[in-house]
């Protein structure tokens, strides 16, 4: 276990010196500062930041993690020649990658948001952003382990991002209209759980658009996600989105002919 932590620390300190991570954090910080300074209403600024959280974080997390995995391929091979388990090596790679992305998120978006908001909304923003980064990194690692070829891996990851960020909502819209004659309360709740980006969005919007959601259908979502239990639920499902792809990729990685 100590070997794994040492390894994680080493890889982590390597990654945070990477230009891309620094740029990523810088971009977020710049966007946050600009929005909070230009926009008179901090709520409106947060809304724009939410869009960054929902588009940019998954995209960068996924692509960066994939590229990082392929770039460390030889390093991983070298490590595996040492008396280290495959699980340990893989998990340290994952943890270091996810933690550095989270650090960039917290520095870039988290701190400016915390300066302007000190309530449940800010807490929810930070928590879901962090967990979303973890989930996206896990999904990216899974895709990277599946495909040996780098171009192919990045292609899969891009497609996945496109699916989660855009296509999925289209499918949901279609389902909701096709089955509009049926009671859809539970189905909509289930559908949001099947997409980490949607889950993040819904949990944030329940705090931002309270008035609209007090209407007929909204009340149900509000009841479900609105309380502290809702945060736990969102957090739990997002964690599952991290753990399940991770378990899957570990399985593949363990038996893989490297």
């Amino acid at each position, binding site marked *: 276990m100590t070997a794994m932590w040492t390894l994680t620390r080493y890889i982590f300190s390597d990654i945070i010196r990477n230009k891309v991570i620094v740029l990523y954090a810088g971009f977020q910080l710049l966007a946050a500062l600009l929005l909070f300074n230009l926009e008179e209403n901090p709520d409106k600024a947060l809304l724009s930041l939410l869009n960054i959280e*929902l*588009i940019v974080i998954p995209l960068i997390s996924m692509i960066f993690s994939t590229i990082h995995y392929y770039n460390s391929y030889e390093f991983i091979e070298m490590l595996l020649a040492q008396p280290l388990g495959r699980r340990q090596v893989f998990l340290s790679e994952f943890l270091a990658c996810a933690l550095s992305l989270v650090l960039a998120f917290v520095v870039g978006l988290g701190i400016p948001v915390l300066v302007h908001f000190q309530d449940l909304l800010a807490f929810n923003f930070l928590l879901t952003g962090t967990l979303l980064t973890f989930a996206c990194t896990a999904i990216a690692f899974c895709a990277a382990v599946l495909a040996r070829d780098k171009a192919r891996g990045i292609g899969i990851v891009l497609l996945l991002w496109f699916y989660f960020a855009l296509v999925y909502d289209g499918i949901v*819209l279609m389902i909701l209209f096709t089955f509009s004659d049926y009671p859809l309360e539970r189905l909509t709740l289930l559908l949001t759980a099947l997409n980490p980006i949607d889950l993040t969005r819904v949990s944030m919007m329940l705090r931002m658009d309270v*008035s*609209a*959601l*007090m209407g*007929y259908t909204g*009340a149900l*979502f509000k009841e479900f996600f609105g309380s502290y239990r809702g945060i736990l639920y969102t957090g739990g499902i997002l964690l599952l989105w991290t753990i399940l792809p991770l378990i899957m990729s570990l399985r593949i990685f363990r038996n893989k002919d490297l």
Partner: protein
Amino acid sequence: MTARGFWVLAMLAMAFPLSAVQYIVGGVQGHATIAEALHLASAGDTVMVMGGTYREGNLLIDKPLTFIGVGRPLLDGENVHDILTLSGRNIIVMGFRLENSGISAMNDLAAIKCIDITGVHIEDNQIARSHFAIHLANASDIVVRNNSIEGVPRSEHNTGNGIHLWKCKSALIEENDISGHRDGIYFEFVSDSRIRCNTSRGNLRYGLHFMFSNDDRYEGNRFIENGAGVAVMYSRKVTMEQNEFLHNWGNAAYGLLLKDITDSYIGQNYFVHNTVGIFMEGSSRMQILWNSFSKNGWAMRIQASCNDNRISLNNFSGNTFDIATNGTLVLNDFDRNYWDKYDGYDRTRDGMGDVPYRPVSMYSMVVERNPFTLILLRSILISFLDKAEKAIPSITPELLIDRRPLMKPVRV
């Protein structure tokens, strides 16, 4: 007695023909019961009730009297009676605390009930746990001022209204504080009246309910956390000014519900944190000016059955949806409002955007058709669709458009 002295006396007698008598109830040498004093008193007299608790069932005042509580005497209805019944003309009731009127599904039992009366003045009373608090029927020249009314919210059908007016004229309802009733203030067939500076909070149905009442005016009131805000129905020439509609949340909750209202004015009101700020149905020739809508779910929901309304110089900010409608027909005029979602420019520097603003988004039309799609709120896909729709409108009503959107909020 000299002749001059006689004349002086005679003139004094003419100046005070029936010098008013004061009856005192309670205390050391007062009458034992209020009923006794009321019986003895004649028109123009004053009945003063000292502090204490009085359980005398239903008290009837049917002559012009001034009925005053000193040291806030408590009139207890013991959950059975109407406490005070007023009838006739020119009656003043001040300074009492009334509790526990009877509750009945058959009769409108009330703490203060006024029937067939001209000139009634009810001021500075506290009314608690009553069915109806102040109930006026067939009355005119009414002043209800500075009363504090607190009900016990049960269910809609066995809770009465706070201040209830039926078939009245020339009423002034002012600075009252009403909570926990079915409707805070209820107007039916009431004309030429004013409702000023009241606070109506936490009532089961409406903060103010207004039916078939023309030529009325309400201003400076606060309506907070009521079941469904304020409802104004089937009326003409109503002026609504400088009211605050706050936190009316729920499935059928509106800040202000307008149904079949014509020729009315809504100005300088604040709508904050309501599920729907203004809901309009079958209303026409309304002037809606200088209002502020912020942080509502829907700022305004205008059904296609409304026409000739002018919505101008209002501020819309931080609402999830600005305007929603249920059809493509638009016969209303939107002009020079401030919309915080507007992203056009002003090259002519006249304070008005050069590109028109369409306050109805495609998504709000989608939600109108299928409310479950609300789960996709703030989705990226939705914002793309909205942008596409803005460029080439197909679902949204083409005429619902503000051609001169303001660049800066209106200062109200």
